[in-house]
């Protein structure tokens, strides 16, 4: 294995993931080093755990045969930023926060909003993690113009480009995004930016209980200036609150604020309140369970009620129909029933945190058995040695994906 400062001994900050503790960690600082490390690992059949800011390491199936860690934090920095064009090229290990600040200074907004202050660009792409602003920012894949990668064979490649419209070849970035680093290692990305809003104001309001009240607030998420709307409820604490972020032009925000004020008692809070709520979702607890459920908008209220009735606390983005639930359930079967119900409502359920004993029984992602052959075939072609995050994005034989 290639010499690297961190490879010669045990890493001072080992990585603990479901299924393994990784103490030998490589920290390349250039994409070519990533290629060399992966080639050597492939030659020896050594499994690699690829990670960035460690924010979502727990959000995957148990690892299998991982020998080394490959930390991409050393690939850092904005290589090219074109304020005239609203695009930039950034190294994968760069923290989202750094990019956000850099582009804000030039009048742009980074349309990536993953939970967790340590989130990196590469980790956000690998996990396709979105935050409460997904309703205005869109999916992670929507922000990607092009990617630089290292494949499971250690060979560097590119897909996409740097322009804002492109159908030159397959849209491989869509496949890499959300594949948890199992098809290739993202080393850099061209991203498109959104214009920065002239005004951003955040308000809270206290809604009443029940489905009718939920649906009333859900519809507010469709207002043009609402960049995020979060409904939070904790049955144990007896708390319920809606937080609304308005962003855009002065006229637009003023108009929607007036409209909302006619319908609810709004209290203005700090403009970074939505960031706090977003990052809260990456933190541990309360309880050993965290799941993310997506359902159709019209089904969202019923699903929220079901989760509340199970005793879970929820943080809901009613616009895209995303529910983050936390707490404790008595049996893994209860989780599977929630997943089945989400599927019937047109969506999915991802078990983002699980007690270790449940992990062996449950597939975190609910991967569809009908696509297992395609999934395995694609993985084998992109990572023939099976060394990239082995086990973490596949449903094992002993797990039940429903």
């Amino acid at each position, binding site marked *: 294995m290639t010499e690297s400062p961190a490879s010669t001994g045990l890493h001072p900050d080992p990585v603990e993931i479901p299924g393994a503790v990784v103490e030998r960690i490589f920290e390349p600082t250039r994409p070519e080093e990533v290629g060399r490390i992966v080639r050597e690992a492939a030659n020896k059949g050594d499994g690699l755990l690829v990670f960035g800011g460690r924010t979502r390491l727990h959000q995957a199936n148990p690892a299998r045969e991982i020998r080394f860690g490959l930390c991409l934090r050393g690939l850092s920095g904005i290589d090219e930023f074109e304020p005239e064009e609203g695009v930039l090229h950034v190294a994968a290990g760069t923290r989202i926060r750094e990019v956000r600040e850099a582009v804000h200074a030039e009048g742009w907004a980074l349309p990536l909003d993953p939970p967790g202050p340590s989130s990196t660009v590469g980790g956000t792409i690998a996990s396709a993690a979105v935050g409460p602003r997904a309703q205005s920012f869109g999916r992670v894949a929507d922000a990607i113009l092009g990617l630089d990668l290292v494949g499971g064979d250690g060979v560097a490649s590119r897909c996409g480009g740097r322009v804002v419209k492109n*159908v030159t070849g397959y849209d491989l970035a869509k496949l890499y995004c959300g594949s948890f680093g199992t098809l290739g290692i993202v080393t850099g990305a061209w991203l498109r930016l959104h214009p920065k809003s002239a005004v951003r104001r955040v308000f809270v309001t206290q809604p009443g209980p029940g489905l009718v009240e939920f649906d009333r607030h859900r519809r507010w998420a469709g207002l043009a200036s609402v960049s995020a709307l979060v409904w939070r409820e904790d049955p144990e604490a007896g708390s319920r609150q809606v937080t609304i972020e308005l962003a855009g032009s002065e006229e637009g925000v003023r108009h929607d604020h007036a409209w909302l004020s006619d319908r609810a008692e709004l209290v203005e809070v700090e403009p970074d309140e939505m960031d706090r709520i977003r990052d809260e979702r990456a933190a541990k607890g309360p309880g050993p369970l965290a799941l993310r459920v997506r359902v159709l908008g019209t089904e969202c209220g019923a699903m929220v009620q079901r989760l509340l009735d199970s005793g879970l606390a929820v943080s809901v983005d009613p616009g895209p129909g995303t529910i983050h639930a936390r707490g404790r359930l008595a049996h893994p079967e209860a989780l599977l029933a929630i997943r089945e119900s989400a599927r019937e409502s047109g969506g999915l359920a991802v078990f983002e945190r699980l007690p270790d004993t449940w992990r062996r029984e449950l597939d975190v992602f609910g991967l569809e058995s009908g696509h297992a052959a*395609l999934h395995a075939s694609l993985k084998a*072609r992109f990572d023939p040695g099976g060394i990239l995050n082995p086990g973490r994005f596949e449903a094992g034989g002993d797990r039940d994906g429903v």
Partner: protein
Amino acid sequence: MTIVASPTPPTALIDRLVGIVGPAHCLFREGELFAYECDGLTLAPRTPLAVVLPATTEEVARIVRACRDFDRSFVPRGAGTGLSGGAHATEDSVLIECSRMNRVLEIDPGNRLAVVQPGVVNAELSQAVAHLGLFYAPDPSSQQACTIGGNIAENSGGPHTLKYGTTTNHILALEMVLPDGRIERFGNRVGEGPGFDWVGAIVGSEGTLGIVTEACVRLTPIPEGVETLLAIFDDVVAACRAVGRVIRSGVVPAAMEIVDRRTIEAVEASVYAAGLPKSAGAVLIVELDGNPVCLDGEIRLIHEACRREGCQAIERARNDEERTRFWRARKGAFGAMGRLAPDLYVHDAVVPRVHLPAILEKICEICDRYRLKLANVFHAGDGNLHPNICFDKRDPDELERVMKAGAEILEACVAVGGVISGEHGIGVEKRDYMHLVFDDSDLECMTRLRQTFNPDAACNPGKMIPTPRFCVEANPRARGYDAVPIG
């Protein structure tokens, strides 16, 4: 140019296809196939072995299995409006034409989605949901004829992709017949299936991964307010610079389109005449939509950007009639260009928008050097150029100059960080130019995806990815076995 005649079709295969779709929907006799020898790329016509028009997903699957049993390749086709030859068949392949699968199966206004068959015409979907205050946002120029299935294959765009994105942003789930005849469903109604984003990979795959037989699409609320502006410039370069200023201003118009002098002349001399002044060197059409209270402020910023680049005048549409007149200059352009020459080669490339002024000058220089008539009408807000070369394909010398100029235009666009297609796709037209953008390892990754679905390339062979021979030669001018002939 030679049109290769279809060989005598194998009776047993035809019998089986007729047995699946009925005699009225299986075409194989000489004369029946003429309309299917090419799509919107008319430069390399080839007559397929047969054309079948299935009505159901099950029929598509049975057709695919029949083709496999007889060792024949097959090519999916929508309305045949594609401009890169993505639906070109070969003489020994079966064309599977999806126009009979044209039903809107479900509309869910509460969740703003619809489930449609692939043969639904793009504009008709928007018409079908208009009474609900919704529309289907991707609006390719051929939207009165092109189908959702073809749009999915090509990841079609249109003038309003600047704000609303391309087809990929509006497809939630798909049903597809795989190249081995199995029927699979991908994605779900929330647009986020567990596992790999198969839907994202299939959209824009030009029918090389399978045949889409059903799609769940996202619908968009019709904006409350719309404003359309027409800015008149002395020349196209100034109009491009104004586009750059608009982008920097933070306004995201729904559309920003430029029409150049030659196109204006053609439009004004045609039935599409929009009443544009003869002095206009270029016009910039800007459409803004959204909350009406925001639009006045955005209009002020557009005015400012255009004035700073010396525009002659800016008109604001006062009603729908005027809006239609403004758009006539853009939408009637291709029809009007028919007056300039018998044939039109519609190119498609994208550059970073900051390079638009320089690349436009370069394209003009290339076409002048090859003594070709050039007209430009393009999606300036996306940096998506459509240099239209007017020519007569019966003149072999002119045709050769068209092809050479086209290659130089693509090279010039790539040299400034651009790509060789923004919305028309690669197909057979640009397959051998893929090396301008991607190296062998990039193309190898694309091949891996294709092989996952379509290992023997029986489904839509010869499209998008150059053959390995050309990978080795890395010669952008090298042309494949079914490439566009020169002369």
